[in-house]
Each structure stands twice: as C-alpha cells, then as structure tokens.
C-alpha cells in the first residue's frame, strides 16, 4: 500500500491565556494549532511528521465526522507526549518527529493539534539583578495581603454625615 501526502491547512497558533493578550506580560504555557483537511474524501492517517521548535509536550485531539447522522466528537489521540525530556535543555528542541497511528490508542489521526510551549527563561539575565523567584515570592505575599484587606471591608457605618470629609453641621444637606 503506497503512502501519499494528505494536503492540510495549518492555522496560526492561538495562545490559551487568561486576560488580555496585548497588555499582559506573562507568557502562556499552552498554544493551540488547528489543522484542517480540505479534501472531502475520507482517508486513514498513518503518520504525522513535523519539526519541533522548543515544544516540551504535545497533545493531539481529533474531531471525527463518522457519519452524517451522528454529531462530531472530540477524541484525544495523544496526551502530553514528551518531546523534550528536559524543557530547559536543548535535547529534542529542534528535532524532526514522526508520530504513527499505532501510538495513539484510538483509531484515526488528528485534525487538531494542541501545542504546549515550555517556560522560557529570559535570555542573558543581568548578573546584578535580584533573584526573580524570591522577589516574586515577596510581591505575591504583599498582593495577597492587599487583596485580603480589599475584600474584608465592613459594611457597618459609624453614623457620621460627611461632606467631603468635613463634619461641619452647616454643610449638611437635607436632600
């Protein structure tokens, strides 16, 4: 049986991230790549080949259209398949990867790729800068204390009639 390439359309990556992508400074850990197959004829996918670029783990989910009557379901073919043994090292970072049908427990192969990105340290951190993890720990505690106080306001009033912080009786209004 000969193997042929199936034409596919790979969409751009989408970050799974909470909050506004433009303003937030954190790097997301999970990116999603959609792959669609424009050809209508059904096929049996045997192998996926790609070149990795600093992805540590790969999950593949496929949406199958089995027949016209049943609704398409999402199936997970691969979950957290390890491409890089150590995300902070170079091993496996730019390798060519082939995934075969027999590696996935379910039948056919993906039309949808989920593409997690490992945590990247900022390159060339200045020696004189303070340790970010310790700074982060202190700042997070300060944030938590402030959030706690913000949440724990009391609704009780002292019964004062303030007008711009002034307690002058003449300034009290009757409306």
């Amino acid at each position, binding site marked *: 049986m000969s193997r042929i390439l199936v034409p596919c359309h790979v969409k751009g990556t989408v970050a799974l991230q909470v909050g506004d992508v433009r303003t937030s400074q954190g790097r997301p850990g999970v990116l999603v790549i959609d792959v669609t197959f424009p050809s209508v004829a059904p096929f049996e996918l045997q192998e996926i080949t790609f070149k990795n670029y600093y992805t540590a783990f790969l999950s593949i989910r496929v949406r199958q259209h089995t027949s016209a009557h049943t609704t398409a379901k999402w199936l997970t073919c691969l979950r957290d398949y390890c491409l890089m043994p150590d995300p902070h090292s170079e091993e496996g970072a730019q390798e060519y990867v082939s995934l075969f049908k027999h590696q996935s427990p379910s039948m056919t192969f993906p039309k949808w790729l989920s593409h997690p990105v490992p945590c990247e340290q900022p390159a060339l951190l200045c020696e004189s800068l303070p340790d970010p993890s310790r700074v982060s720990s202190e700042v997070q505690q*300060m944030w938590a204390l402030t959030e706690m106080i913000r949440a724990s306001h*009391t609704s009780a009033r002292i019964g*004062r009639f303030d007008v711009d912080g002034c307690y002058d009786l003449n300034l009290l209004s009757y409306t």
Partner: protein
Amino acid sequence: MATVEKRRPTVIPPAGFTDSGRQSVSQAAGATESEEDFLRQVGVTEMLRAALLKVLEARPEEPIAFLAHYFENMGLRSPVNGGAGEPPGQLLLQQQRLGRALWHLRLAHHSQRAAFNSNVTVAYECLSAGGRRKRPGLDGRTYSELLRRICRDGRAPEEVVAPLLRKVQCRDHEAVPLSVFRAGTLTCFVLLEFVARAGALFQLLQDPAAAVADRRVGQAVLDTLEGALQASDAAAPARFLEAGSRLGPDSLALALDRAVGGRRPSAPMTREEFLERAAALFIAKVKPVG
C-alpha cells in the same frame, strides 16, 4: 514593699477516732480535700484553667514569658492600692486599659482569624467597660490612640502608616461600634505585616554595598504590583490567575530586565521611600471609615 499576705485558716479535721492509725489516715485525707477546696474557693483552679486555655489558643513561641505577662495583666485588674487611699487617676486607668487591650490583640496572629476575632471582642469589651467616671462604650479618641499604639509598637515608620490612620481613625467624640473596631485593628495589623514584607523585598532589591536600591528596579517592582492590584472586573478566579501571571518570577524578571535595559544607573531609592510607596498601594485599597 509587698503587703503581708494573710494566711487563710486551714480546716482542721475533727478528731475522735479511737484507733490511732485510722486517725492519721483520716487526717491526711482531710488535709488533701481541704487543699483542693482551698484552691477552688480562691478561684485559682479557674484562673489556671483560663491561663492554660489562652496558651493553647495563642501557641506562643515562649510560653513561660507569655504566662508571666498574662499573670501580670491579671494583677492589673485588682485595685492597685488594695482599696485603701485614693483610687488611681483616670489617665492611669486609661493607660492600663489600653495596655491590656493591646495585649489581647497581640495574642493571636491576624491570620488565625477565629482566635483573632475573639481577642478583638475581648479587647473591645475591655476598652468599653464603664468606670466610675467613664461612660460605657468606646470613644473615637481611645480608638485612635489604640491604632497609633499598634502601629508604633509594630515598628512601622510614622510617615508610612499616617495615611492609613487618617483613613480609619475616628473623631474623638464618635462612638465606635465593634465592627468598625475589628476592621480597623485588623487593617493595622495587616499593614504592619505588609510593611515587613516590603522591607524584606527592599533587602532583596538593594545594592549590598549601599543601603539603597536602583530606582528603576524599585519602581519596576512597585509598578508590577500596582498593575496586578488594578483588578479587572473579572470574577475572582480569573483575576487571581491574571495577578499570578504578572507576579510570577518570569514576568518579574522580564520587567526588571526591561527597566534596567543597559542604561546607566539612575538615582537611588531609599528604603523609606520604597516603604512609603508600597504602603500607599495597600492603603489605596482600604475603605475609609464613614
């Protein structure tokens, strides 16, 4: 010179047994019983039980010193001069009450919320108790004085805590309800911990040689914290995730990197200035009393 302690008369067990051996046994039994009764009658049993409960609740690092302070405070409750002569002046009583209330408030850390709240209630009652020349209830002047004492004893610089006190203090003549009292004291203790953390943070940021930090570094950290506190209107979990993302080590490292950016060092930032600015971020989130 301590007053002579009077000795209470011991209960003498009745004699009247013909057998000498049995007489001695019954005498010993009688003496033991009288000791227990004695302790119970003078209230020592109850007092020790209360003291032990307080120790268990507070779990202090130095239990003996804690107990010593506890009993010292107990002594304050009884009349200073044993009833004879002039009663202590209003000012002295006020100071005693403040001292006792402060002691109660410091028994439990604010994070031990149930214990802290019960101590707050005890402190409030202590300050609100009526006296011979004092109406019951807590007035704003005493309350404000207490808050100042909390902050001063917590070794926070005055300029740092002054804006908070302006927000949560009450006017001298106002009557302070328990909920306001609780919120105000809690806020003060949390601010003290916040300032302590900010101090530790400054230690990390400062130049080991000098006692100052690079202004760009300090400002970058404060700006990041401020940004994380500028909550979006999203619901709580999303807000926490966003803050966690901003305040994570990677994000902070990037912010610091960007701030320093290869330019030559700028003006230094002192510890006082850093603490003041950090505290301002906290105080901005405190709801003023009113």
